[in-house]
């Protein structure tokens, strides 16, 4: 009886028709998946090919699929918010539910959509771009993915089990502290981010080592493709920024679960220290999600303008400068906290400074296109749309950077418009551009151009209709995170909601295009779908699991372009040697599943179960430490067979 009470009153979220609907659909979809897998006898396939894989390409694809799913979830949240804000006095969501939704929307979009999407693309592309056969630590790579996947799962179940966090993606204390926010909801935020953060940190380390140590012979640092450079810089920022988040999350977890006083109002705590630590990580984080997108745009613009990237060195140095500056601007997120004039002025200036290297890049892209013979394929369209939209976001960012003016803009829709202009026009356009661009490499056929363009126009036009009015709403005084609007804000809000619907249509068309192209697109016969310039295009399509049969010697930048000119290939029969590859392993999946159990228990403050789960994790580590499997060799015969088959169509 007690148990039943607990289940109905605390465990499951009850009383909300929308959430009942969600529960039913979750159960149905789960059953459907189990049924399909069992009926078609696919469980073994799933386990062998995906759950235990350490292949960077498959891991990359899993990241991207998961990120698209999260984009869907975050997008549904967004649409619900837009419905509620369309008209004054709407009663679609009550204030509590609205708080929960903007919290999950923000957290999911940044942590579980933007980062995994980019990390997925990095996973697939970077080893190919530098001529490596996998990342430096393939096992760790799988571990990263599963930590992200289980972290995301943990965060996502909150809305049906226990309730969603509601203190914003920034989770400021004392609002998010145990006093004002009791119960498991906020713990989901803490544990979800903590678990997935392990993976992000490991990814950072993995890519730094991969890029520094595993480049093909002759590929000096200054010959690396620019996307690889952006990945390297991003990884460095990750390695230095994520520990701050880890520590901050841990401190708040200890506050909430074990009653300490780091961020509490009472007991000598310092609530604003959370905001400080959060943004010490948070601003580098926004560069973590924009730099790889910059890299993607650079690759695409150079390929489709059919010119070498203009100002390669300037690009590299500006990223290095950003890596340093991004750590000294964080206070601009809380100018209004009330630190003195000296502090605010200092951070005003650093913030404006960081706009300089960012601006340099804009000129690099324009310079690359100047006098180029531009092709307007879908990836290029996304990149072209990115430039003006991002400039709007950047310029309004500089407006926000003026501390005195920010007292007006702060926490209004002006801010909301700013960060959507940088995050959507930057990161999301970048992800769509990158996915469309590298799609033929990943799946052996292009996305349909016509449908792709329709989805592009819906999304880009919708985006501007949705977010541009928000600047004016902000100036008119509409506060951020409000759940009802005043009548005088109605016209612009209606406009914004129409824009949101157009974006949703654009997204649906994008996803439909994946299905349509799978059925009807022409299959690629060569590996070089766009007349590319960097080394990833040198491999066949589909890419053999060992990537390169033989590694070409790199004698300059734009490795593949040179290779094409001198008629080289990645399959020189006289140079074939057995290739060493890592073995698959189920340990990462199991270990992170146990981590999931432990953190789920901690969310509910079931300490015994949490300890049991953690012991399981440690056992997995021990198993891994005594695992002497050094991988296996692919024989020359097998390489020959694979390559001959893949290259049939080429002649």
């Amino acid at each position, binding site marked *: 009886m007690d148990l039943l009470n607990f289940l109905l009153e605390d465990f499951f979220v009850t009383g909300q028709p929308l959430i009942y609907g969600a529960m039913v659909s979750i159960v149905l979809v789960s059953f459907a998946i189990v049924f399909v897998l069992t009926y078609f006898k696919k469980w073994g396939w799933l386990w062998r090919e995906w759950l235990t894989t350490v292949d960077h390409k498959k891991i990359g694809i899993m990241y991207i699929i998961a990120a698209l799913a999260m984009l869907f979830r975050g997008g549904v949240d967004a649409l619900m918010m837009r419905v509620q804000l369309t008209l004054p006095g709407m009663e679609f969501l009550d204030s509590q539910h609205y708080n929960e939704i903007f919290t999950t929307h923000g957290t999911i979009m940044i942590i579980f959509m933007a980062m995994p999407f980019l990390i997925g693309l990095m996973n697939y592309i970077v080893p190919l771009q530098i001529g490596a056969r996998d990342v430096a630590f393939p096992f760790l790579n799988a571990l990263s993915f599963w930590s992200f996947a289980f972290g995301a799962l943990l965060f996502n179940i909150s809305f049906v089990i226990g309730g969603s966090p509601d203190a914003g993606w920034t989770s400021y204390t004392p609002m998010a502290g145990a006093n004002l926010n009791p119960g498991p909801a906020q713990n989901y935020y803490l544990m979800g981010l903590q678990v997935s953060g392990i993976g992000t940190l490991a990814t950072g380390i993995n890519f730094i080592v991969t890029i520094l140590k595993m480049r093909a012979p002759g590929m000096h640092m200054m010959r690396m493709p620019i996307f690889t450079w952006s990945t390297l810089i991003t990884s460095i920022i990750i390695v*230095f920024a994520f520990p701050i988040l880890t520590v901050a999350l841990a401190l708040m977890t200890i506050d909430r679960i074990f009653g300490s006083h780091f961020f509490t109002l009472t007991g000598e705590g310092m609530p604003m220290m959370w905001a400080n630590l959060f943004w010490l990580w948070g601003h580098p984080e926004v560069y973590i999600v924009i730099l790889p997108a910059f890299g993607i745009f650079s690759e695409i613009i150079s390929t489709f303008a059919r010119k070498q990237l203009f100002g390669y060195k300037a690009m590299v140095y500006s990223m290095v400068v950003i890596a340093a500056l991004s750590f000294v601007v964080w206070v601009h997120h809380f100018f209004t906290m009330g630190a003195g004039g000296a502090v605010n002025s200092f951070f005003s200036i650093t913030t404006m400074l960081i706009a300089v290297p960012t601006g340099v890049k804009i000129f690099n892209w324009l310079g690359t296109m100047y006098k180029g013979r531009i092709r307007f394929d879908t990836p290029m369209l996304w990149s072209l749309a990115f430039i003006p939209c991002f400039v709007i976001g950047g310029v309004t960012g500089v407006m926000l950077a003026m501390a005195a003016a920010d007292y007006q803009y702060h926490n209004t829709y002006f801010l909301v418009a700013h960060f959507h202009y940088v995050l959507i026009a930057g990161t999301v356009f970048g992800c769509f551009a990158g996915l469309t661009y590298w799609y033929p490499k990943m799946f052996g056929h292009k996305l349909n151009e016509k449908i792709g363009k329709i989805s592009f126009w819906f999304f880009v036009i919708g985006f501007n209709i949705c977010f541009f009015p928000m600047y004016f709403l902000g100036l008119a005084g509409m506060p951020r995170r409000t759940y009802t609007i005043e009548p005088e804000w109605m016209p612009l809000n209606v406009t914004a909601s129409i824009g949101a619907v157009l974006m949703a249509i654009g997204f649906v068309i994008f996803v439909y295009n994946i299905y349509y192209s799978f059925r009807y697109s022409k299959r690629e016969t060569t590996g070089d779908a766009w007349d590319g310039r960097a080394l990833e295009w040198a491999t066949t399509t589909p890419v053999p699991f060992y990537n390169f049969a033989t590694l070409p010697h790199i004698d300059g930048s734009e490795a593949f372009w040179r290779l094409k000119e001198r008629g080289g290939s990645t399959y020189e029969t006289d140079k074939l040697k057995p290739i060493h590859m890592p073995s698959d392993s189920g340990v990462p999946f199991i270990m992170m599943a146990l981590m999931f159990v432990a953190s789920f228990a901690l969310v509910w403050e079931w300490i015994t179960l949490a300890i049991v789960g953690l012991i399981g994790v440690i056992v997995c580590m021990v198993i891994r430490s005594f695992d002497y499997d050094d991988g296996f060799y692919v024989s020359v015969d097998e390489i020959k067979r694979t390559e001959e088959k893949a290259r049939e169509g080429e002649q």
Partner: protein
Amino acid sequence: MSELTKRVPKQHIVGFIGSIVLTVLAAWTAVGSNLPVPWIITAIMVLAVIQAFIQLFMFMHMTETDSGKIQAGNMLYGFFIAVVIVAGSIWTMSFGYTHDHGGNSDTEQHEEHMDH
């Protein structure tokens, strides 16, 4: 090998003397000087940091392997970030906050800021 043994290990000697001088200086600051306490602490910290760099560069040959540049860059960057986090947090967060609840003007300021 022979080349190495013949050469005067200049780096080591400089490093060795440097370390001794720095240590003596630190000891003197603490024991012999009459500086105010905050100055003593600052001085010792600065000396310690210089000392750490001497160790890294002159004895641990940080820059001499083929990835030396990377190691040096990494250390410097890490050092920079650590300073930013610690010093930056102290600097930005030490305004109007006090745990002295005696009702002096500082506490009032503190409460005022909590309204935002």
